[in-house]
């Protein structure tokens, strides 16, 4: 009997071991979703039965540095049973790379069990679940290779595991053997390396998104701190707390009494440890996830007269500045771009001041320079700091944009830019070209005013004379090089046919974006030969009538420029194509 029982136990334990992955899959399958939108896709998991879903920030972000808070327009969530739902973004962050979505369902959904990421140890089993659209839902398994990778340049530590993460698995869950979520998977590294954000951080971010719609970091601006390796603490003769490396002069942290060389041993009653990078990162996460406006109390050790004395320093928490663009991260700072000149600039934050080792924090940092553009040819490099343009001091985004817009609308020939680079001062002269000089453009619009304003501005900056109207009659008033139709225009068939026929005859460039390509139905038959694109939802009508619909974001065929106008990036590309066609336009009467 004993033998039988032992045998039985052995068998079941073996059987259990073989079925771990299978059991887990059955348990969690219903909670893992696929996420898809126009630009990209990934995976996610349901954290609340009401339809809250966690995924990566980069899965939903438009990654548009000119509008860093933009998310993809139409995000679809696909459940395990192939049911589709439109999702709304509650909030997202790129570092930590977490986003929170909401779908509206009629029945409650199966949510995952949240595990304790603090209890994760190196060597334990883990499973990554990915559900990339178009591919099978996949479960990969491995072990946790490292619980605290801090050298990847991310805000928090991340788990490293050898469970394979493919690109479509981004945003999916990392499970422990019990089927509890311990992380949100981000990028896969090289073969055998995958990274996952500990779920603890994702859950804090979930709260932030629900409360504020974004990640609101707190800080005591500004001081630089670091961990204290054993040797360092030994030389100082203090415990391994958090070391205050540099107090930025004239900052708030200086005013509350923090000093260079202080060793923080307690923060809000909790001991501060700088024993390891992991501990330090944890401490920093703590500091940056408190509540704006609340008091913070540091207990520090300070050397006075050769002895370490304990002191208390307290202050009020402020909101941290937006993260600048760095490496492949687009950050949270807006870039003000001028494609006409081939450059973009960003404000200078303390973060960018140190990351880029800038010579000053007054002025604007050149964040991108198009090679061979007008600005590049004048000798300006990325990370130059602009201090003056045409003798006017540049202090912030507003002055920068006002000054440059002013120069371009007045069609000045030269733009003189004083910059600082390293320890040198430069004076660069940009020769400005106005590709649409003397061109006349008519915009007929009843669409979104912000987008209309952007079109008008961008055309004017290139030298065009722009007229805006909401009626089709305005066409007759002038001799146009280009006509842009924007919004949900509904002309009478006759008006439309006349307009289009006239445009085609005069070889006027015609730009249609979003729904307006539908107007082509009343145009001359010759238009059916051109390649066109438009808002996907309305395209079937045109396809049925024999139009050559390609579905691309932007199509430019001769004098016909069309676009889906799906998002801001697409609108920008559309405008570039439209401008290029207008610049090239030859009047048939010439």
């Amino acid at each position: 009997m004993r033998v039988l029982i032992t045998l039985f136990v052995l068998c079941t334990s073996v059987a259990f071991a073989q079925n771990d992955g299978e059991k887990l899959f059955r348990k969690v399958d219903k909670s893992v979703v696929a996420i898809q939108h126009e630009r990209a896709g990934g995976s996610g998991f349901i954290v609340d039965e009401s339809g809250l879903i966690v995924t990566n920030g980069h899965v939903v972000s438009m990654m548009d540095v000119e509008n860093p808070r933009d998310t993809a327009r139409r995000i679809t969530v696909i459940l395990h049973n192939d049911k589709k739902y439109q999702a709304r973004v509650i909030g997202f962050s790129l570092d930590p790379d977490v986003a929170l979505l909401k779908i509206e369902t009629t029945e409650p959904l199966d949510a995952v069990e949240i595990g304790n990421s603090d209890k994760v140890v190196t060597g334990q089993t883990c499973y990554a679940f990915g559900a990339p659209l178009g591919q099978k839902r996949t479960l990969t398994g491995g072990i946790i290779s490292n619980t605290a990778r801090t050298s990847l340049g991310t805000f928090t530590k991340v788990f490293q595991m050898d469970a394979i993460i493919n690109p479509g698995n981004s945003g999916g869950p990392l499970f422990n053997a019990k089927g509890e979520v311990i992380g949100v998977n981000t990028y896969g590294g090289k073969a055998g390396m995958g990274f996952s954000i500990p779920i603890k951080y994702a859950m804090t971010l979930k709260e932030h998104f629900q409360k504020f719609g974004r990640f609101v970091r707190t800080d005591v601006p500004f001081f630089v701190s670091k961990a204290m390796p054993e040797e360092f603490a030994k030389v100082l003769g203090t415990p391994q707390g958090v070391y205050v490396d540099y107090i930025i002069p004239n900052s708030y942290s200086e005013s509350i009494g923090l000093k260079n060389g202080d060793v923080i041993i307690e923060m809000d009653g909790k001991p501060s440890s700088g024993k390891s990078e992991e501990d330090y990162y944890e401490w920093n996460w703590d500091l940056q996830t408190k509540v704006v406006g609340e008091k913070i109390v540091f207990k520090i050790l300070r050397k006075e007269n050769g002895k370490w004395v304990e002191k208390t320093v307290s202050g009020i928490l402020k909101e941290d500045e937006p993260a600048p663009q760095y490496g492949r991260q687009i950050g949270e700072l807006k870039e003000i771009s001028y494609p006409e000149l081939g450059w973009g600039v960003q404000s200078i934050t303390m973060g960018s001041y140190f990351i880029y080792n800038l010579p000053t924090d007054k002025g604007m940092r050149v964040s991108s320079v198009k090679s061979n553009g007008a600005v590049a040819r004048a000798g300006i490099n990325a990370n130059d700091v602009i201090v003056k343009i045409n003798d006017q001091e540049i202090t912030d985004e507003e002055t920068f944009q006002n000054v440059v817009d002013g120069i371009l609308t007045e069609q000045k020939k030269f733009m003189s830019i004083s910059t600082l680079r390293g320890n040198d001062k430069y004076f660069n002269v940009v020769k400005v070209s106005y590709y649409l000089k003397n061109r006349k453009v008519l915009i007929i619009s009843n669409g979104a005013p912000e987008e209309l304003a952007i079109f008008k501005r961008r055309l004017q900056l290139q030298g065009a004379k722009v007229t805006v109207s909401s009626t089709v009659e305005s066409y007759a008033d002038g001799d146009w090089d280009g006509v842009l139709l924007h919004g949900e225009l509904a002309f009478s068939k006759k008006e439309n046919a006349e307009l289009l026929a006239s445009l085609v005859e005069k070889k006027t460039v015609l730009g249609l974006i979003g729904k307006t390509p539908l107007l082509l139905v009343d145009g001359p038959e010759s238009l059916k030969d051109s390649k066109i694109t438009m808002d996907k939802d309305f395209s079937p009508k045109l396809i049925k009538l024999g139009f050559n619909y390609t579905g691309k974001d932007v199509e430019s065929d001769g004098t016909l420029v069309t676009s889906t106008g799906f998002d801001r990036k697409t609108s920008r590309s559309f405008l570039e194509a439209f401008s290029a066609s207008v610049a090239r336009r030859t009047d048939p009467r010439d």
Partner: protein
Amino acid sequence: MVVFPKSLMLLSMAMMLFFSTTTNAGFFDSDSEPKAGREYLESVQKTVDETVKKVSSGVVFLQLALKKPGRTNSITLNGVVIDDKGHVATLYFKEGDVTDVKAWIGEEEYTAKIVKADMRNMLTIIKIETSEKTQPIVFGDTSTLVTGQFIVGVNATSKNLAFEPAASFGSLKAIIEGSSDSVLVSGMNLTHNVDIPTLGMPIFNLDGEAIAISQGRSIVPIDGVAKAAKMFANRGDDDSDEEPWIGINYEAVSEELSQVLKLPRESIRITRVYRDSPASKGGLLPGDVITSIDGKKITRRGVRALSQIRKYLEPEIGRQTDLEIIRNGKDKSLSVIFDEKPKVTSISIEEFGLTVNDISSTDYYRYNLKVNEGVLVTGIEGGSPAATSTYFGRPLISRGDVITEVHGFEIKNIKDLRGALEKLREKKESAVFIRLQRGNRPTSVSLDTAIGQKTKDRKEK
């Protein structure tokens, strides 16, 4: 001396070129045409021959024995005699790569020793052992070169060719002036080979004056060699490598800049004035536009002005140079006196395993430093405390860091550092606290020292 037959072939080729470009020079309107043409040819031939005779005792065949032989045991070059004391200038090569230099002028062999290897000016000065006076070449005026003018290349050859000078005849195809100068030639075969080494070969005008030198890939006007030869003559065999400098960076004035700032394009604009340099002492500022040097006005525009300014400047320590500048729309006169370029003396701090130096004004720009005082770290010795102490795997100290405090001692320069190290050695400190300036902010680190440690591979100081 007989002209080497090969050159005759080149000569005739050049002649054909010559005839194809003549207009109606009157050669063909009378019965005496063929004769006149023939006479002309002979006169050119004679000029080339005479040029070769005139200069060949100034062109030297050099053989360098390599320390680490590769495909060959030695390389061959040409050089030119620059004075009557036996000094020969040739292309730059690394002294350490060569064990032995032999020189031949004609059939006469000489031993030679390297006197000065000047990487910046891309030449090496060699002295040949002879009691007789040597015949230097004459340097021509490169500012009067014209495109299309005829030139004669004279190559000293090897024993295999009986040391016969090889002549080539051609013309100047283009004269390129800018941030560096070069010339293009037509009608000459410049392929280097062991017996006819074109590397270092001088090129002469029809008056027998050297105007260019072949560097292999490119041919450069002889100015660099001429200037170096002159400086060398003034200083003699003084082996010092003092470099004269003014301490400015400058750029050409572009069309846009000239229009916006209302500046002449025949000028150069200063972009950087080094601290404590002759330029700063003379009162020059970034943004100043130089229009004349020692009374010589800049006449070339844009990028060519860069070449002209190099020709006008005579770098010599102690020499005063008068400048006419434009500053904020007003004309001004300034003088600067060439001084010795500050040399950077690096020392090795064994206790830390660091190579450091006092901050020089060039360091300030090169490393983009934000402090003027302190000791700059330029090297980290592998295996040393600096290399092995880490901040969780990342280096604690890097090149470009400036040490400003060591264990409570303020460090303004190497002297301070030495003083601090003395005290640390006395106290036998095995780990110290260091404050550094890194980029635009300070940071603190601790460093284990090697004080009191005797390891097998550490030499006692």
